[in-house]
């Protein structure tokens, strides 16, 4: 008898519970929630990896964002800015779960982040369906502003096309007529080298061979021997993080630097890996959209502020975080801090235009992708340490969107 009574009470209890609160049934049957979202605060959901292989990139993006919001005192007009961080790990499914939490539970007004392109693709439908403005601050997969374009997704970082394409023509004229390509075997590596190949061969260059070591490959000796014996004047490489450290070091150790110039994307010799490479990176030419060595007033101020706050040099990810924060702030300022209407927010983002530490940036309203300068940089030895130097600027590079 007791149990039957308990069951009846359970039913009553559940029925009462379901009558109040915002249950799933209610929120899915209602169309728009209107102003119930934020009161006096603007909630920004930040989805970045705090653990796993990309943790250090996530950390720098966070630092950059916080640096900018510090500078405006975490306020836009009368509204307070609140960031809600979630760890995307390196797992798209976990990231999607976290994105749902930010959107459904925390009711963020704007979403930003994602280092991994797979994560960005994974949450793409969710933000599109729920009309959450999503500013991509790192993930560079081409399709995000092409076939997977959404009204609510804007990208302030880069596309793999921009990275690869920018060096193609320049390399043909200044490096050599024959090229070997070595890139990490994952979607991004393939896209970057594809874009480079296109531009390089269009200029008249010849690709002698290609090799795609797996992501996280530990020993490049076999590939290097193959490359060494190929008849190419130079090598275009795409590697990042620990792969970049190992590849550049081993490239030097196996004596390839003497007869084949190494060129590639900026991550090959970026701020965060150069120190670990020793002097191996010296002489490398790469293309990227920002570098520590850019000599503009905006960049000087950014570097100074960053070094003062964190006592270390900013990395390119710090810059990405900084710019993403600034874009969000500038867009919302034009709306007086009212982030309740996602359509107005994305409209405001599309009109943002300012001079960033990386040079002037604005958005392509067609593709939703950032239009920015690309820099060709060379790694040199300065006072016993490697430093990059900008040797050429390619202005206003626009992703073709196709």
């Amino acid at each position, binding site marked *: 008898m007791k149990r039957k009574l308990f069951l009846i009470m359970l039913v009553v209890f559940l029925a009462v519970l*379901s009558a109040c609160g915002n249950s799933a049934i209610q929120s899915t049957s209602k169309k728009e929630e209107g102003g119930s979202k934020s009161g006096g605060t603007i909630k920004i959901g930040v989805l970045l990896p705090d653990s796993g292989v990309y943790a250090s990139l996530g950390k720098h993006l966070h630092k950059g964002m916080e640096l900018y919001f510090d500078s405006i005192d975490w306020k836009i007009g009368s509204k307070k800015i609140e960031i809600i961080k979630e760890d995307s790990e390196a797992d798209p499914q976990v990231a999607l779960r976290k994105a749902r939490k930010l959107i459904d539970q925390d009711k963020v007004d704007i979403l930003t982040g994602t280092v991994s392109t797979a994560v960005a693709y994974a949450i793409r439908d969710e933000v599109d369906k729920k009309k959450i403005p999503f500013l991509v601050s790192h993930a560079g997969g081409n399709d995000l502003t092409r076939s997977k374009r959404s009204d609510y997704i804007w990208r302030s970082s880069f596309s793999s096309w921009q990275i690869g394409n920018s060096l193609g023509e320049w390399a043909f004229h200044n490096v050599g007529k024959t090229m070997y390509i070595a890139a990490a075997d994952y979607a991004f590596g393939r896209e970057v080298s594809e874009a480079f190949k296109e531009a390089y061969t269009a200029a008249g260059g010849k690709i002698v061979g290609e090799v795609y070591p797996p992501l996280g490959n530990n020993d490049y000796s076999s590939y290097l021997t193959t490359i060494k014996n190929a008849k190419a004047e130079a090598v275009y490489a795409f590697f990042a993080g620990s792969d970049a450290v190992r590849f550049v070091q081993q490239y030097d150790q196996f004596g390839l630097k003497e007869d084949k110039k190494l060129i590639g994307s900026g991550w090959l010799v970026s701020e965060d890996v150069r120190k670990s490479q020793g002097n191996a990176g010296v002489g490398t030419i790469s293309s990227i959209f920002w570098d520590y060595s850019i000599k503009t007033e905006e960049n000087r101020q950014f570097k100074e502020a960053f070094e003062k706050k964190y006592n270390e040099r900013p990395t390119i990810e710090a810059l990405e975080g900084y710019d993403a924060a600034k874009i969000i702030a500038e867009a919302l300022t034009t709306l007086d801090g009212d982030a309740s209407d996602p359509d107005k927010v994305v409209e405001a983002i599309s009109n943002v235009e300012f001079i960033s530490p990386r040079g002037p940036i604005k958005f392509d309203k067609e593709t939703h992708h950032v239009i920015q300068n690309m820099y060709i940089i060379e790694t040199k030895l300065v006072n016993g340490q490697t430093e990059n130097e900008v040797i050429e600027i390619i202005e206003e590079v626009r992703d073709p969107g196709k």
Partner: protein
Amino acid sequence: MNKKGFALIAAVMLLIFSPFIFSLFYLNLVTEILILAIFALSLNILVGYTGLVSLGHAAFFGVGAYMSAILAREISPNFFLTLFASLAAAIIASAIIGIFCVKVSGFYFLMLTLAFSQMIYSFVHQSTTITGGSNGLSGIPSPLIGSLDFSNPVYFYYLILLLFILIYGGLSLIVHSPFGQVLIGIRENETRLKSMGYHTTLYKLAAFVIAGGLGGVAGSLYTSFNSFISPSDVYWTMSGSVLIMVLIGGSGTMIGPVLGAAFIVILETIVSSYTTMWMMIIGIIFILFVVFFPKGIVGLGKLLLQSFSKSNKLSAISGKKSNALYNNDVKN
């Protein structure tokens, strides 16, 4: 009404009312737990009932998931089509792999399943044109049954709940059936089973295929749920985490893997919002369970229940405790 039936009805009722109580986020979380619970239940047939510890179960999850994703994109998002195609693909894959794996046992079985799953992983990772490579496949249309669209999370939840109940019920029938008892016998002493006249290799293969097939179903549901699949769900770490779910929950019991899945998903979701050290926390909890509660959450629960229920005489406890611990589901 016995104790067990009562608990069952209460649990099912709670699940049925979930959409009325939980907010959307928690409802999605419950959906995800149910899908991963199906995955863990499938592995449990191998690990818990047949005694074959596999470190490659994500392979079948992946086969099912990619099968669903490709079919939904290229042919039709019809739910039954994707579900049964995934089931069939996973059954075929597990039958082929199983033929080799069931010939070895113990550590060798662990390593051989790992080897096969890593081969499938590298295939998925490499075949960019079919599987989207490292970026995975996204924008997969939500499942349809006739003209009914399951993009609404509440409908989808009920669909998953129904499937979960069917699979849970089906599996508990199987493990208590004469066939299931053969599997338990193999776990306990394969030599003896052979000398009783059982073709144990065939039974192990059957268990492998059931596990693989249901793993594929779980993968298919996961794809439908998230509209997305990527190679990280086929990687060995996925196999490792589902194994942890089974072991923490309580292997060789029906409810254990479900509790394990819930525990890990909730832990990972909640804890990682506060600290980046969630791996350490899972690691420590895992170690504690291995040392103190080798029978998982289920074993812990039974211990607690026994120490609470004062009606039991002391002698009955001491006599029955180990009984319950070592023989969780076998007797019922």
